[in-house]
């Protein structure tokens, strides 16, 4: 980590001393944001349109400042990024006032919300773009419904089939992949059903059903719930009986209840990790991030609500937010976000290889059957390239 003085950068870029671009700030730098700042400096020294570059530079400087500090503070165990004390200095040098009506309504799932990731991301977006965010945590089904009713501007969910339907019905535009993690099958330490270490999720579920071990299902049509039902379906089982309890609650609630009852459940790794302090459940079947079956993949997508359907949605701010989430700095923040010492999400919005599948519903291309498994291959490709071997 080395420190950079904006004054130095300014001098290196060849700007005259009597026209300061920004006050000097201490920027503790990680490798990542220095790359970005260096790129900006290169662009600046090319000459060209000063005003555009000036703005981009300021943005880079301010965001880089925050990123740097975020990178530092995320090493604390509670996974919260405290806002940079320097950010207020940048206020009067931000971009012009409002986008749309200055408010962005984001509907997202409770599990995403509860990890605290958005608490770290959103303030940065608000600062940079001068938009006030209103985040509504609801289940996946409710978030999609809210968006269909035009009561939200942008949604961030993790239920690909439902997202596809949303796009097919014309409500969602500009879908982008944002990040992924996976699901894990968790249960009590003593593993009454004996599924620990299994490499097939369907087999694990089948064993649980056979042993009639207590299983708690979210039963709320959420992304997690949909995934769970897909697994039961693949295993050819219709779960019923006293051991299978659908409780209609959020992920946190479900984990807590499973913990209390010594039951198995399917959880997204992010929520599980962020709650490890509160519960004693352990992972019995890993997800693909750690070599488990691909069926447990959990990709997140963001979409803007179609302004043609609802003329008064804040489309510009929604697009700005999508741009922010999928930008290098946004993706970097996602990558660096941890809870209880572990990384929760893996960014996958941008890659050198083309990734058309994110923009359209699955199977949109002519080769329908093939594109489904292509998606799985795509996922494994990300895992291979993004997830460090020592994760």
């Amino acid at each position, binding site marked *: 980590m080395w420190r950079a003085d904006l004054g130095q950068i300014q001098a290196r870029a060849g700007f005259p001393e009597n026209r300061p671009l920004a006050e000097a700030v201490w920027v503790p730098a990680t490798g990542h944001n220095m790359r970005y700042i260096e790129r900006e400096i290169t662009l600046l020294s090319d000459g060209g349109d000063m005003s555009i570059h000036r703005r981009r530079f300021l943005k880079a400087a301010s965001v880089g400042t925050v990123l740097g500090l975020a990178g530092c503070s995320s090493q604390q165990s509670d996974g919260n990024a405290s806002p940079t004390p320097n950010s207020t200095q940048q206020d009067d040098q931000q971009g012009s006032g409002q986008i749309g009506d200055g408010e962005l309504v984001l509907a997202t799932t409770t599990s995403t919300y509860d990890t605290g990731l958005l608490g770290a991301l959103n303030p940065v977006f608000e600062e940079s773009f001068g938009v006030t965010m209103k985040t509504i945590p609801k289940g996946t089904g409710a978030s999609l419904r809210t968006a*269909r009713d035009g009561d939200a501007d942008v949604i961030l969910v993790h239920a690909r089939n439902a997202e596809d339907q949303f796009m097919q019905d014309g409500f969602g535009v500009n879908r982008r992949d944002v990040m992924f993690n996976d699901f894990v099958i968790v249960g009590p330490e003593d593993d009454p059903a004996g599924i620990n270490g299994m490499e097939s999720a369907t087999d694990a579920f089948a064993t649980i059903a056979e042993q009639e071990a207590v299983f708690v299902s979210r039963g709320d049509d959420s992304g997690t719930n949909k995934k769970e039902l897909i697994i039961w379906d693949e295993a050819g089982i219709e779960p019923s009986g006293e051991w299978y309890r659908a409780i209609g609650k959020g992920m946190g609630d479900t984990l807590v209840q499973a913990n209390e009852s010594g039951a198995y459940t399917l959880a997204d790794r992010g929520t599980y990790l962020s709650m490890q302090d509160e519960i004693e459940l352990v992972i019995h079947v890993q997800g693909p991030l750690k070599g488990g079956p691909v069926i447990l993949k959990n990709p997140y997508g963001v979409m803007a609500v179609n302004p043609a359907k609802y003329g008064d949605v804040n489309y510009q701010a929604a697009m700005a937010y999508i741009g922010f989430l999928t930008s290098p700095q946004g993706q970097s923040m996602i990558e660096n976000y941890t809870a209880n010492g572990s990384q929760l999400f893996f960014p996958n919005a941008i890659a050198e290889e083309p990734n058309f599948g994110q923009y359209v519903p699955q199977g949109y291309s002519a080769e329908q059957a093939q594109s489904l498994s292509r998606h799985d291959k795509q996922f494994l490709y990300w895992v291979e390239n993004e997830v460090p071997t020592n994760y």
Partner: protein
Amino acid sequence: MVLLQVQLPDGGWTYVLSIVVVSLKVSLTAVGLSTLLSLPVALLIGFTDFPGKRLLTAVINTGMGFPSVVVGLVVLMLLSNSGPLGTFDLAFTPQAMMASQFVLATPVVMSISLSSVEEVSRSIRDAAYVLGGTRVDVGLVVIKEARYGIVTAILAGFGRAISEVGSILIVGGNIVFSDGQSYTRTLTTAITVEARQGRYELGLVLGVVLLALVLVVNSLGSWIRSKGRGTRAS
């Protein structure tokens, strides 16, 4: 003795304070509006005989037990951008919460006010009339005579509003701004967030704050009631 390990939510006491402010703002407004509507209606229903009066009274009483989630859904559907009142842009705002709590509190306030008002004896009304009072004057006398019951009605309505969670969760969206200031999060919905994340102790702390609030309001109500000086001669 085990000390409860409680870590204040992010934002600490400013966060809690802003939640309390939203809770009070929403519930007090809802009950206030409810009272303004309920008192004249109670007077109207109480003193007139009309066909279907008993049915109407029964309907009002039934409204007291109306499930809050259902009210929340209906209000959301009305205020949603795709609903009939979408132009007012009220979905997920404190105003929407006031509206749904207004619907929940009104049957309570109206029903109890109605029975208090009906208990005021006819001779009191006659006395006010015969001393030169207009209909409005007589109504005011009745309200003053029934003030014990009416304050009870308002407190009951407030209790229903401040402690409910189902409707405001749906119409309000439980929103907190990035700086930790609550927009549509109240004590009750904040407790759901903490409970959802397994932070039970914190949920309890918020619950205690809520109870303290209700206690303060009820004490105020009792004091107002006792200001009536002198007990009712039975």
